[in-house]
């Protein structure tokens, strides 16, 4: 059950998107998110949908994976939609007691739903086609100027990539610990909030101890492999823009231009 979470999970394939520089993909994701907020009409959303569909097709990642990430935000999505529908004032379409659904509310709700969904799918495309390492490399390079004001960019990106590597391992471990305690009669489902919190102790203590142990082991393994900070470190996969990236930036610029044009023209 816990293993179903795909957010931040890489899907290995051999596509143009996989080959792009992570910085290009970061920029692309940003452009796409901006565009989703610029578009506000049906033709606009059609363009965004087309763009998204094209990206999914190019990525060679099965569509199913894209939508898996949505599972995590289904609740947020529902709440947003419902609240927008009943809380927006305007022309009343349907009424039950003090609850009113308005035309403007429905429009806003649909727009929010589309934005949220596209946001998640858009960022899923990036995380599914970019290894966490490339992603942190990209961020490291993009954020390098911050080094000047003593932000430890290398350390932060190293921590992020290690965290990403251990998330699936710790999730699996959580599963195992839960089973081991359920076998001893532990109950993680029933009871009031305080009881529930108390019942988590047999899960959290072994999990934390294991996490510390892993951290300790990993630190030692990194030292054994000559890790001594970011100084004099070379890279196996240094970030270099290739022809693909130039083309991608071109496409992105064109797409952004369309989004702005639509907004300005009011389409």
């Amino acid at each position: 059950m816990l293993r179903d979470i795909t957010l931040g999970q890489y899907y290995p394939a051999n596509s143009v998107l996989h080959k792009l520089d992570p910085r290009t993909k970061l920029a692309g994701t940003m452009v796409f998110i901006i565009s989703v907020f610029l578009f506000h009409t049906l033709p606009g959303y059609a363009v965004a949908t087309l763009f998204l569909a094209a990206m999914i097709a190019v990525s060679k990642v099965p569509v199913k994976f894209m939508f898996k990430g949505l599972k995590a935000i289904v609740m947020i999505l529902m709440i947003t939609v419902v609240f927008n529908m009943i809380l927006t004032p305007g022309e009343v379409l349907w009424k039950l007691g003090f609850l009113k659904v308005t035309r403007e509310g429905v429009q806003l709700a649909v727009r929010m739903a589309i934005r949220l969904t596209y946001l998640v799918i858009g960022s899923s495309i990036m995380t599914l086609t970019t290894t966490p390492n490339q992603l942190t490399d990209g961020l490291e390079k993009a954020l390098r100027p911050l080094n000047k004001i003593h932000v430890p960019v290398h350390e932060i990106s190293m921590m992020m990539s290690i965290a990403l590597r251990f998330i699936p391992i710790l999730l699996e471990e959580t599963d195992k610990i839960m089973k081991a305690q359920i076998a001893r009669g532990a109950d993680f489902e029933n009871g009031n909030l305080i009881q529930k919190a108390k019942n988590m102790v047999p899960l959290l203590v072994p999990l934390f101890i294991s996490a510390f142990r892993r951290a300790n082991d990993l630190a030692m393994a990194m030292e054994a492999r000559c890790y001594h900070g970011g100084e004099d470190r070379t890279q196996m996969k240094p970030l270099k823009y290739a022809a693909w990236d130039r083309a991608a930036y071109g496409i992105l610029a064109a797409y952004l231009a369309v989004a702005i044009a639509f907004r300005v023209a009011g389409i």
Partner: protein
Amino acid sequence: MSIELKNVTYTYSPGTSYEIHALKDINLMIPDGQFIGVIGHTGSGKSTLIQHLNALIQPTSGTILYNGEDIWAEKYNRKALRSEVGLVFQYPEHQLFESDVLSDVCFGPMNQGLTREEAEVEARKALQQVGFKEKNYGKSPFELSGGQKKRVAIAGVLAMNPKILILDEPTAGLDPKGRDDILDQIAELHKLRGITIILVSHSMEDIAKYVERLIVMNQGEAVFDDTPKAVFAHYQELEFMGLAAPQITYIMHALKEHGLPVDEEATTVEEARGSILSALKEMHSPLFHEEVTGGQENA
């Protein structure tokens, strides 16, 4: 106190490209009081199988009966079942969490509704039966050695007074002495409490020495279910599944091939010694003079 599996099938992520048939049409009868071994390489379905026995996993299809009752029937009390069918997982680190050993072992019994005092009675009994010394009851479980942790983990389940005790690779990571000690202790428990023991192991040598019945899992199927001797006779098929018979089996077959009339069914060092000695005697081998040593009776 029997468990019966009827046509049990379990599929991970059904309907996706990750679909794995972890169990395929398993039929098993586990009666009272047996000492059963389960063997199979990683991914053979043996872990999935044992988690079905105490309702941690629900089968995709098929039924599991405990004392004739369907454990997945709507009103069935699966929490109560888990006290009857105790499962000890491979890593004690996954279950130890209290600040001292005694409290940790009390966790199970207290979940059954016992008071702390009543639970302590059960905990002390269980700790004593796994050979854990009383002077260490107050220690933190985290400062114990691997073998001691394992004992506390077993006691933690045993204190719930299960009728069936399932142990998933109880010897993993232990050194040879630690391994023998734990297995001897488990065999002792079997005698002492008369409960059913199901031992999951990678080691054919351990299995051969202790169990009376051996289930071999391969690709989600129970391919053999017989006495260890009968199963090891299929040693070539076992190899084909990435398993192997105990080293003794190979030695005995090799000796027989080279003309020594030994019993190929011997699986333990003790049996092999007896069989080789009598074979040498029968052959009037110059290597062995019975009168000098007092013969094969000296153990």
